[in-house]
């Protein structure tokens, strides 16, 4: 039996639907299209799949997906909580299942009509009495109702503490928008952005302007995860999971961890970094490209520091040195990310991580051996390192 998840599992297939503002079809239709494409991409049949993992927020249940796609017997399924914080968790659950033999081939998926259906940031809903809803009761009456408002509180403090400005945030947004211009699936393709465009956009929650915030989209995205051994004989070049973990840090709340010592840092991401570097034996210097979760631009600054790409407070200088561009020290979100490709709750960032290992990104840097992908920021989260066989 393996004692760690290191090199035990791999991503062997990826699938995605078109990303749009109005899919015109059900979320189940999006989910099953993405799942089927991931299976086809791996060169498998639906009957080869025996496990499914998705988000607690996803409306397409595992058995509905299985019946629709023609997946037969299943021995493993699970759902991961906390919105975009779930993304890497899907990979972690699936990798554990294939590494322990609980399942052979697991598909993880997320599909949503995020623009035409139930939109994010429309206030908080749910059952009357749950610990989660009571948690929101400390924020909703005060008008703290949207992810932008919660993240802005942390971003304000971070920027004041380290002297980061709107220009620094703009660099991140503009770089990712530039990447999206080469991506046929990106919502923001054909809409390059200048510094003026960025600055002239309206203020949402200070310091966040419109283009500091990700979009809302309809679509589905899926990955097929199998053992590293089996992946070698499948159709695509495998993206081996060097390390993967979920991470929740002391004092964690869902988006509102305002009660910790230092709000200008992401201790759950620091925890994730520590674990994945330990598991893989790698360090920040070994990471060749990244897809850092980018629902809001300041999250990128804080993650660069949490994963050791630069020191505390130095991320602003790191991004202005064009480090996140193709020729830079850490090409980041080469597909455009959640800001400029689509908001698929982070699963599309995982798919890009796999493409970067395969060498098939629309903006492929040279010599990519290791890619870091992270989950939602401000929530219980996770991180994964993909590597070559």
């Amino acid at each position: 039996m393996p004692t760690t998840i290191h090199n035990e599992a791999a991503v062997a297939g990826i699938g995605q639907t078109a990303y749009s503002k109005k899919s015109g079809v059900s979320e189940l239709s999006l989910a099953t299209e993405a799942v089927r494409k991931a299976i086809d991409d791996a060169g498998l049949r639906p009957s080869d799949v025996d496990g499914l993992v998705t988000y607690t927020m996803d409306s397409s249940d595992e058995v509905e997906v299985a019946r629709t796609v023609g997946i037969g017997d299943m021995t493993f399924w699970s759902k991961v909580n906390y919105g975009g914080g779930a993304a890497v968790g899907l990979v972690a659950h699936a990798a554990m299942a294939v590494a322990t033999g609980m399942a052979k081939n697991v598909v993880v998926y997320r599909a949503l009509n995020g623009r035409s259906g139930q939109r994010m940031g429309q206030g908080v809903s749910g059952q009357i009495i749950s610990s989660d809803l009571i948690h929101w009761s400390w924020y909703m009456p005060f008008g703290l109702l949207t992810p932008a408002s919660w993240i802005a509180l942390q971003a304000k403090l971070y920027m004041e503490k380290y002297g980061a400005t709107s220009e620094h945030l703009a660099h991140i947004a503009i770089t990712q928008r530039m990447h999206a211009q080469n991506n046929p699936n990106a919502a923001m393709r054909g809409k390059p952005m200048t510094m003026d465009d960025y600055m002239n956009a309206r203020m949402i929650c200070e310091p966040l302007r419109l283009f500091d915030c990700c979009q809302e989209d309809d679509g589905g995205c899926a990955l097929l995860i199998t053992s590293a051994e089996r992946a070698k004989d499948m159709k695509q070049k495998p993206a081996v999971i060097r390390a993967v973990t979920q991470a929740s840090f002391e004092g964690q709340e869902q988006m509102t961890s305002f009660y910790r010592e230092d709000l200008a840092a992401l201790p759950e991401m620091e925890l994730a970094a520590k674990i994945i570097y330990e598991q893989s034996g790698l360090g920040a210097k070994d990471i060749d490209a990244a897809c850092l979760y980018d629902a809001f631009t300041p999250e990128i600054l804080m993650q660069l520091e949490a994963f050791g790409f630069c020191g505390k407070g130095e991320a602003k200088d790191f991004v202005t040195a064009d480090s996140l561009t193709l020729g830079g020290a850490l090409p980041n979100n080469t597909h455009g990310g959640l800001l400029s490709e689509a908001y698929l709750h982070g699963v599309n960032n995982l798919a890009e991580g796999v493409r970067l290992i395969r060498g098939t990104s629309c903006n492929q840097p040279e010599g990519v051996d290791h890619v870091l992908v992270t989950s939602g920021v401000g929530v219980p989260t996770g991180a994964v390192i993909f590597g070559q066989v």
Partner: protein
Amino acid sequence: MNENDKKAFETQLRTFVGRPIGPPMTGRDPVNEPMIRQWCDAMGETHPAYLDAKAAKGTIHGEIKAPPTMLQAWVMEGWEMHEGYDEPKNEQHRLHKFLADHGYTGVLGTNTEENYTRYLRLGEQVTAETVIAEISDEKATGRGIGYFITTRTSFVNEKGEDIGSMSFRVLRYKPPAEAASAGGGAGKDGKSAAVAAKPTRIKPPMGQDNAWWWEKVAKENVLPIQRCTGCGKLRHPPRPMCDACGSQKWDSIAASGRGTIHTFTVIHYPQFPGYDYPIVSIIVDLEEGERMASTLVECKPEQVAIGMPVELLIHTDEDGFKIPFFRPAK
């Protein structure tokens, strides 16, 4: 409603989804010139293709046609449609009465979408069939907690040809005063509830772990901080167990109301009904050592700063709801 009642209620609510509201309804009159003329008068529509037989002859239709947006007018029930919520006569009425009987007495039309397949000709007989298409999960909205109900209507002519469709969405919600009286079940009829109150802020959903705090704010005009009676540790937001000593026993103290701003944001968008924008949202370091989220008032957004000393102000909304805010310290 306790958890089981709530489950039973939700289960029964879901049974309405997919039901036609009743048999298909055929308009009282076929498409005719006088009704078109009256409708155009009421709407200020003056296009000759709808009003002038001679001019209409020159159009590709060769005769007067009905304005597409009149579609629903052909099947309106007339005055009768105002009746029926006390003694429901179709499934839509039954659904609304069911929700009203459980405290969801507020009604708000939220949006409608219409599709027109083609122009209607004189003499065509319109029939509409309406289905309860969707009922959302329970949502916390600016009006209060409630359900969005979507009905879809298909329109056909006497030959069964498709001539258009409509979806209509309403919010059926618990007005805050009734939501606060925990049980709901005011059982008002749909008519009086349709007069919507001025929107108010989203009220805190109340449970055993937080209701006491808001009640203390309301009754004692204080900012309570929960205190473990085992080891004396303060904690905010309140929780049912002390994370230091494991004790489930607690009381509370009244905060001094003095604090400093740890961080803040000025919220401009999106704007929800019941709040005044921009909102200066703050995280306050209370003098007692705990932190809380609140709102800063009596301060211009450009004057707020990290580290600014603030003092408590128990704010009372127009509907009587009390909430602890802060203002710059005097």
